[in-house]
């Protein structure tokens, strides 16, 4: 059975953890503000106030967005077939399927995308 370098998994996790720690630390340098009012409205370029979020009614856009998500998932699934057991392919299949459902839901329900 091929041995797996533990840093193949620990390395990326280490990078993400260091990244988030530095991001939070750097956040101390500047002021953070959120609220309501003109300052917190989306940039309009001097035009009249527009709806907070534009909506898409494009078939191409919906398919393009789904292509993006499915492709990223397919690459992870393809990589998992190197594992000696079926556990990881099945785990990724279930996880990836769930993620696609959530992302599609987010894009359509929260994001206001229309088909």
């Amino acid at each position: 059975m091929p041995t797996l370098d533990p840093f193949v998994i620990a390395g990326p996790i280490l990078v993400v953890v260091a990244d988030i720690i530095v991001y939070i630390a750097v956040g101390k340098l500047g002021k953070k503000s959120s609220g309501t009012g003109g300052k917190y409205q989306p940039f309009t370029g001097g035009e009249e106030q527009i709806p907070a979020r534009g909506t898409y009614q494009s078939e191409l856009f919906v398919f393009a967005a789904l292509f993006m998500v499915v492709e990223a998932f397919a690459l992870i699934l393809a990589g998992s077939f190197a594992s000696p057991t079926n556990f990881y392919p099945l785990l990724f299949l279930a996880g990836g399927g769930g993620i696609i459902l959530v992302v599609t839901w987010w894009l359509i329900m929260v994001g206001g995308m229309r088909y």
Partner: protein
Amino acid sequence: MEECDTNLIATEVAEILLFPGLTFFVWIAFLFDWLDRKTSARMQSRVGPLMAGPSGILQPVADFFKLTSKEEIVPEFADKFIFFLGPPLFFAAPAIGIIFIPVLGTTATVSNEYDLLFVLFIVAFSALMAAFLGYAAAGRWSTIAMGRLIVQYTGYEIPLILALIAPAILAHSLSITGIVQSQTWIWYILYAPLSFIVFIVSALAELEKPPFDIPSAKTEIVGGWMTEFSGRPLAYIKLTKNLSYAFLSALAVSLFLGGPLGPILTPDPTMQAALYFIYFVVKLFAVGFLIFVIRTALARIKIDQAVRFFWMIITPLSLIQLAVIMLAWWK
């Protein structure tokens, strides 16, 4: 024995986070930004950065810290969770990718038989994260830009993958380290020149550089998908774009230009590591410079032209290159 293990782990962690890993590549990213600005300034008869450091070399660092110290405004309608967590995750994509790139030798700090697939995922994840950031910002311009980004992505992603598969087929390996080690005698740019061209063109699109800066076209849609970002998130997003610049150049060096391999070998391991490092950096800046010049010389095209260009010209080119490789290696 335990002390030896601890030392090995400490060395590995230092390699991942400091040198030749994350910190080193962040400095390369700052240098790339400075060189990019200097090159385009020179080509357009301007001066470019001048004030911070000798010849303005520290200008990108100064810009980064200036942005981080500015007020960070979270728009009222933004998805707060993604708005907060998105920039570091966006940064994580190229930051993870670079640990699979061999720099000081023919073996990367972290390597696996299938790490090229993982790197492909990282490239896809990076574009996906950018799209989510644009959508989460909930602004008019960022939403339009996000649409453009995704449509452009469907154009360049397939040729990008096909271009990266060519060296994998030549090396019979899906590992970046394996591909580098198989280029001892000849670089794959000589076997697969079309794939290299396709990779550079697709990388320009991935980096949103002209002529494919359609999702961040300043004269059309303000700041593109970054319009609503300010302060620290904007500083991080800009740094991530430069880090992706360095990462994709490093990937091109590893897959097509022999990575850190060079003509002179020496029996002294320290001297050899230094030579590997010099070869790698020289090739990295050569690829980077190629991208700087192309992006300065060309003007932006329209989104439909970009997608048509990728589907009608670039994808067939990458397929032709793969067909030639398969025929030549057919036994």
